[in-house]
């Protein structure tokens, strides 16, 4: 880790800038939408309440999306950060352990076969539930394996294999599905923070918030882990439990977001790099809040672009996150002229 350091004062300014970016992104997302709502009306709806259509749009559609994008981005970025530290591998993202493919498989089972199973009166939360079960089912298998395998690389390969297996079954389901159902499934696979209900948001906020707080308490052992397992052991870290906890929290964070919004690419892979390169540190105590704020701001801005660039037509958010994020990461790497 050949990183030139920033002064604490500079870092403080950076954190203030990240925080301001999150607030600015949230405000922009609230003010701008495909249905124009003037600032005065917006203020009136929030301050005094209203029964108008625009009040419904704001409370039921726009605000849940704004909050979901911020939360989802923060959770994916922190999840990616944890796994990159755990595997000591910069190209690892939150979905490398098969979380996304597990969620996709269960959603495919529900979406592509509900008619034949007789579940035509599907609950609106069935897909979310399926994604959650798929993500956490895969996570449970990974955790069981983690308990018995020491090598991170082996775990990484097992994660990739899980992904292939899930992908194989999903593709079989797609091959036999009707066109209309495939359309619905493809739409889910694009990922979007659109249409989340307040209940779903409260689950995301409650569980996600707890997990994020929990992650911060892992900062010190994470720093020790970065210097090698032997070093961490000498510092009193219970390696077996620690590995289990990292995988559990990272998968749980990514699984929650995938269940709520479908697979959202790039954030978990690239934002940790952005945080590391801009804060010029590998200290997890700084990187975790840094990645959290950057993930929230970037995802929120990408969501704004996704719904406004061809408004009212939506563009998949993963396309935006990848198109605009990848060059930024490359730019930062070129600027530093150092390895990660």
């Amino acid at each position, binding site marked *: 880790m050949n990183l030139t350091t920033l002064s604490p004062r500079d870092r403080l300014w950076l954190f203030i800038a990240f925080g301001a970016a999150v607030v600015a992104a949230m405000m922009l997302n609230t003010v701008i939408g*495909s249905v124009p709502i003037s600032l005065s009306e917006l203020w009136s709806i929030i301050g005094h309440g209203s029964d108008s*259509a625009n009040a419904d749009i704001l409370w039921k559609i726009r605000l849940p999306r704004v909050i979901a994008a911020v939360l989802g981005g923060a959770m994916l970025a922190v999840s990616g950060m944890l796994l990159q530290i755990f595997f000591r591998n910069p190209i690892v993202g939150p979905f490398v352990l098969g979380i996304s493919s597990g969620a996709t498989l269960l959603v495919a089972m529900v979406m592509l076969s509900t008619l034949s199973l007789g579940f035509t*009166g599907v609950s609106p939360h069935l897909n979310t539930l399926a994604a959650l079960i798929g993500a956490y089912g895969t996570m449970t298998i990974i955790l069981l394996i983690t308990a018995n395998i020491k090598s991170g690389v082996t775990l990484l390969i097992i994660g990739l294999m899980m992904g292939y297996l899930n992908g194989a079954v999903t593709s079989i389901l797609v091959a036999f599905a009707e066109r209309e159902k495939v359309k619905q499934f493809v739409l889910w696979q694009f990922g979007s923070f*659109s249409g989340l*209900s307040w209940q779903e948001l409260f689950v995301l906020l409650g569980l996600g918030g707890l997990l994020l707080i929990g992650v911060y308490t892992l900062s010190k052992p994470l720093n020790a882990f970065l210097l090698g397992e032997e070093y961490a052991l000498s510092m009193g870290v219970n390696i077996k439990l620690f590995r289990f906890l990292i995988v559990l929290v990272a998968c749980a964070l990514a699984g929650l977001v995938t269940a709520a919004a479908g697979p959202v690419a790039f954030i978990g892979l690239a934002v940790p790099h952005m945080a590391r390169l801009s804060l010029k540190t590998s200290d997890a105590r700084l990187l975790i809040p840094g990645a959290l704020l950057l993930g929230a701001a970037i995802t929120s801005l990408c969501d704004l672009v996704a719904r406004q660039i061809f408004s009212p037509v939506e563009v998949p958010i993963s396309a935006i996150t990848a198109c605009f994020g990848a*060059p930024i990461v490359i730019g930062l790497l070129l600027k530093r002229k150092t390895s990660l």
Partner: protein
Amino acid sequence: MKKHVLAVILWVSAVAAGLVLPACQPQSGGSLGGAFGVRELGEGRQEIVDGVGRRFLLVPEGKSALPGYPPTQIITIPVKRVGAGLPYDIGAMRYLGVLSDSLVGVIRREDRWASADVRAGIRSGKIAYLGEPNGIDYERLRVVSPDVMLTSDKRLLPKLDELKIPAIITTTPMAMTIEERLQYFYFLAALFGREEMAKQYEAVIQAKLAEVKKQTTSVSRKPKVIWGDIYQKRVLVEPMNSYVAQLVEVAGGDYLFDDVRGASCLEITLERFFSSGLQADIFFTYRSPAVGIDSKQKLITENPRLADIKPFKTGLVYCPQPHFYESLERLDDIIVEIAAILHPQLYQGYELQFFQKLD
């Protein structure tokens, strides 16, 4: 360093341009020079342009081909054996009077076709089953060896070229407007030597469009219409340049997604759908009993945030019957049906043939 920054800026600009430019392309219907164009070359030879701009030479039996065309883009006419994958190809062939004699293979299983003649053909073995859209059975296709394969899938082209089966793409990257659909009839008719039928078809449709337009101009209020699909958390709508939006306007309706343009059903923001949904009198959706949606309540269950839109409360919701997609040749009747749905007072006693009401 400056070079690197410049490179990143150029990359971002290129990506943005890549996103913006396709959406800025004109989405007009076909013309003789564009998709589905037909050009006379003399001595009965014709040149046709398929949906993706590939030029085919049509050569009457016994005549020689002209130079400049790859072998798989030279077709002897009239074509006698055709494979097809799209429902509207089937409808058009039926109108041209060549379906029963010329259709030798279809993509999709028997139970996924609504037309009785196609189903009976598959059952009897007269029409071969050639696999599914995402898994063509090339071996069976080779055995059947149609003179021409009508398809929407460009990915099939290299393999079909290898098998020496001419493949014509009958969809376009643009929206299929009414005008383009009429042009498509001329294009298909050229393959079978049925140009007169295409002319007749255009005359019938134009007359019906004029008749319905005249009949519905007298109405005092245009019903507000939206057309799209509701899924969990997401919505897709038909753009204003789609043929169904055009039909709604011709039938004296006010199509509310007049700011959405594109090639086919597009995802729009939930808030935009909700906003138009609050004003709409009629909602047409492709989600139907065939895919498990047999009531308004089922649609509301899919996306509860849209429960307050007008069609679900006091308005009307219609979906197509299964044979709608294979009935392009009856566009004149479909126009009348949409007008009857929009203005029941003008078409009293009308019985639905292509759509059904969801209660």
